[in-house]
């Protein structure tokens, strides 16, 4: 096996493992949230489940961020991306900084600082979404910057998943206050209604991400000539 094959194989494995912990990790979050949102459980149990789903959710959150530099590294290996050498190194550094930010948001104790960091993360997501969408569409139209349309489709799907993540963040805004009121004042029909309504809409976005992930996986495996 040549050095190229060796490293390329390792990167594919990392790529697949990121997919594994993204979609597979989501399973626990998705099912656990049902108990967090159900008034059949007492409030401390719901808080505990909330903490656990929050922790397991760091698997998909982490893998989403890492998927971009790993994907671009694979694309560079296949000569399908102009992001190579130092530029690719820059993407890696930026992605690791983004990952650090994502973890800071998760671990931050002070609500004001958490809000500020999350706001910055949100702007970053919009930026990534726009840049990737434009480069994917440009590839369909002019064959640049990516060397294959199937890769551009994957990039577009990734951007769409980031878009779904943004929608989840917008959707769940009322959730925090409702859950806090649940902890402070106990269960009331209004708080439960808010929690249920928010959960329903965000589940839809989560399922959309799953569907997009499956399509992206299919494009990666089949690499159809389109």
């Amino acid at each position, binding site marked *: 096996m040549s050095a190229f094959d060796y490293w390329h194989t390792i990167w594919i494995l990392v790529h697949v493992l990121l997919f594994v912990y993204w979609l597979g990790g989501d399973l626990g979050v998705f099912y656990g949230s049902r108990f967090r949102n159900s008034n059949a459980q007492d409030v401390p149990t719901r808080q505990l489940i909330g903490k656990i789903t929050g922790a397991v959710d760091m*698997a998909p959150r982490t893998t989403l961020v890492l998927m971009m530099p790993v994907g671009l590294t694979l694309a560079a290996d296949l000569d399908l991306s102009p992001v190579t050498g130092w530029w690719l190194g820059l993407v890696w550094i930026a992605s690791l900084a983004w990952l650090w930010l994502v973890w800071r948001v998760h671990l931050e104790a002070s609500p004001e600082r958490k809000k500020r960091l999350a706001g910055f993360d949100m702007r970053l997501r919009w930026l990534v979404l726009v840049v990737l969408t434009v480069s994917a569409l440009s590839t369909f139209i002019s064959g640049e910057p990516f060397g294959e349309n199937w890769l551009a489709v994957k990039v577009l799907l990734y951007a769409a998943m980031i878009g779904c993540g943004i929608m989840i963040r917008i959707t769940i805004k009322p959730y925090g206050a409702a859950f806090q009121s649940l902890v402070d004042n106990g269960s009331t029909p209004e708080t439960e209604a808010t929690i249920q309504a928010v959960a329903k809409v965000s589940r839809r976005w989560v399922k959309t991400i799953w569907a997009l992930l499956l399509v992206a996986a299919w494009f990666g495996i089949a690499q159809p000539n389109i």
Partner: protein
Amino acid sequence: MEMQGIWAFIHVMFLVYWLGADLGVFYVAYQIIKPEHSPEARATLLKVLGFIDGFPRAVSIFMLPVGIQLADGLGLSPVSGGMLWLPWIAALIWFAIAYSANARRTTPRGKQLAKLDLAIRAALVLGLGVFSIATFVSGGPFGANWLALKVLCFALILICGIGIRLTFIPFGPAFGRLMAEGSTPEVEATLKRAVDRVVPFVLALWFLLGVAALIGISQPDF
């Protein structure tokens, strides 16, 4: 080619719902053994764990017929053509046994089925182990050494699974006592010991899954 792509996709999806789902199982298990959580909360966590764990349990069984389909597509499988439905039927029966053993694990019938499931796993370890070593030595029944190595990995993974089952036996009764009598130092110690002893098997299983994935991706010629 088209069918091969679909089987490869399913193969990868099975890895997702095996290894990826295991992460949730593992994390929740560690929360269940924390005495600071209320018994009600821990009972809810056990329900969550049971649901997530159903996915690795199912896909690990069906990984075998899917793997055979893929191997057949590459012309490397001893089971092919009109015989390909056989592994599927066998896997379905095995799944039915494993599923009912788990669903009725507190009844005598469930315990019987669990023994049968264990016997199937032991037979598979033996059979797959022999076939893969025979391939290294004499070039058959599998058409390539990398495939034989994957099969050997699968046999080792089954051993890890058996190890998990056997070391985890004290957990169920201890959890029942936790629910009936509340938290006592002995019960907590038993729960913690069961989870602690499972860890090496779980880590070995994950590692072997990673190795199997790597072999599948690179399909090295040796």
